[in-house]
């Protein structure tokens, strides 16, 4: 048993400090991203999530230039981006994509400048790589408490607003008629989204952070029928991808080409995508079954009548 395990998990995995930090932070982030991601997909704001990630890139690059922790850069830029998108009109269906696109372009332009300046002032190119594509193994232990607290905050916002967010997603007019302040709820949700994106950016990089946000959620929504089950499934899928990704990345130090290890972000994102694709192998039959059942009920209801 120990022998087999040796081939799967290289010795010393859990005694390594960076790995323990990676597992702890990775889990918190995967759970937060999974739960927030389900609502992002339901609300049709995947594009907004992606744009917040691009805005976060700018913040991360700026934080690197200023010499502070990247997480704070991600977070401040993300929340500022959310506020600007809201001001331009992200809540209105038609204004949404335009507002998001404009903010996105401006942010990436600034990010290009910051990263360029960062490369000039520092001899290493590693920092810009970490900002863009992340590495769980270089998370500073000092920021761990802030990361965990932010994750819990985003989860609390979603928990408190869950029913209202679902009612609004079902139909905004319906929610407004019931006295829900749709716009205020939308803003609170965008802040939670910005936090989730920033956390995800720390773990797998700003550019890839949407993958951890949308991938597990989209997968979960293909299999789960209730919101609670979808959020639980998304959290579990994200966590599994993160853990397996860490193990594979640790193992990959012994893989070709040069025994330098592969990017942990690559493994996490690849696993998430594979998980999503797997749902397409099993589900077409079941979906068809659901539609057939609806049609059968209709025919039963209207046996004598053929609608024109």
């Amino acid at each position: 048993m120990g022998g087999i395990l040796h081939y799967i998990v290289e010795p010393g995995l859990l005694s390594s400090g960076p790995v323990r930090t990676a597992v702890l932070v990775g889990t918190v982030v995967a759970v937060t991203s999974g739960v927030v991601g389900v609502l992002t997909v339901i609300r049709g704001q995947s594009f907004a999530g992606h744009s917040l990630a691009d805005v976060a890139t700018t913040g991360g690059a700026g934080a690197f230039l200023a010499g502070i922790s990247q997480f704070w850069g991600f977070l401040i830029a993300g929340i500022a981006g959310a506020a600007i998108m809201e001001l331009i009109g992200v809540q209105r269906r038609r204004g949404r994509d335009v507002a998001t696109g404009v903010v996105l372009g401006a942010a990436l332009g600034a990010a290009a400048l910051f990263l360029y300046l960062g490369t000039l002032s520092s001899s290493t190119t590693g920092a810009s790589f970490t900002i863009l594509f992340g590495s769980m193994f270089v998370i500073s232990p000092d920021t761990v408490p802030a990361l965990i607290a932010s994750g819990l905050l985003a989860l609390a916002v979603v928990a408190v607003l869950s029913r209202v967010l679902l009612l609004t997603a079902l139909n905004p007019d319906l929610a407004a008629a019931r006295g829900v302040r749709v716009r205020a709820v939308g803003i609170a949700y965008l802040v939670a989204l910005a936090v989730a994106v920033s956390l995800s950016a720390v773990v797998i990089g700003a550019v890839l952070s949407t993958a951890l946000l949308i991938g597990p959620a989209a997968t979960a929504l293909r299999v789960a029928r209730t919101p609670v089950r979808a959020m639980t499934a998304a959290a579990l899928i994200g966590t599994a991808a993160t853990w397996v990704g860490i193990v594979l990345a640790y193992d990959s130090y012994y893989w070709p080409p040069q025994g330098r290890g592969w990017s942990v972000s690559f493994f996490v994102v690849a696993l998430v995508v594979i998980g999503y694709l797997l749902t397409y192998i099993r589900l077409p039959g079941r979906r068809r079954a659901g539609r057939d059942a609806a049609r059968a009920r209709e025919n039963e209801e209207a046996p004598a009548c053929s609608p024109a």
Partner: protein
Amino acid sequence: MSAQAEQELLRLDGIGVRLGGREILRDVSFTVRPGEFTGLIGPNGAGKTTLLKVILGLQAPTSGRVLLNGRPRQRRGGRLIGYVPQKLAIDPDMPLRARDVVALGIDGHRLGFPLPSAARRERVTEALRATGAEAYADARVGELSGGEQQRVMIAHAVISRPRLLLLDEPLANLDLRSEQGIVAVLARLAREQQIAVVISAHDMNPLMRETDTVVYVAAGRVAAGRTDDVIRTEVLTRLYGSQVEVLHVNGRVLVVAGEEPGEVREPIEAGVATEAAG
């Protein structure tokens, strides 16, 4: 409070709405009594949705007032009114079963999340039964047919026991049999639970058998009253401000533009026109 005012659940008094310099509604007045079935009829773009939004408090009127139970309506919310909006486009991936949607009707506007309980579940099942939707209580709402979704949304709207139920074009895009099913459910709710039902439609025919009163909207103004008193050539001609004619064909009502020199008769209600042609 006088006995008459007590009898009135809803009163609109000289409602006018002006949006971006355009007059949408002008001097709209009518009343709805408990348990009454009211058809809000008019061609597309006549202002039916705006009128419903004024009643709901989603659209502030430029003039006039809305009285609910004899009192000026509060800003929004409240349990007096149930609402089924138009054009529900529910994504098949939406992770809500029919029973989850109905449960949101109890407390979907509140913060936090509810603990599941047997009483809660029974209440949801009861509402689904009242609209004939219990067979698909556990199906994803996005995978249901249009008529099935309407039944679920009606259950959602009535579970909090409103006195007034507003439905915006619930019969649009339904086949004939589903139309009849929905109208029957609404008529039963009005009768058995004394819920006043106001239902908007561009085609009045599916509703004719059940409506007590009609509020006919055209060009931003309304003619309201008992169905037979409103759906008349003189009344609608005055409302449209041009010659129209009310025709009865095979038990169906057609409102057509009247004959003027060099003009072709064109049906005003598109839905009716295709029925009559076929």
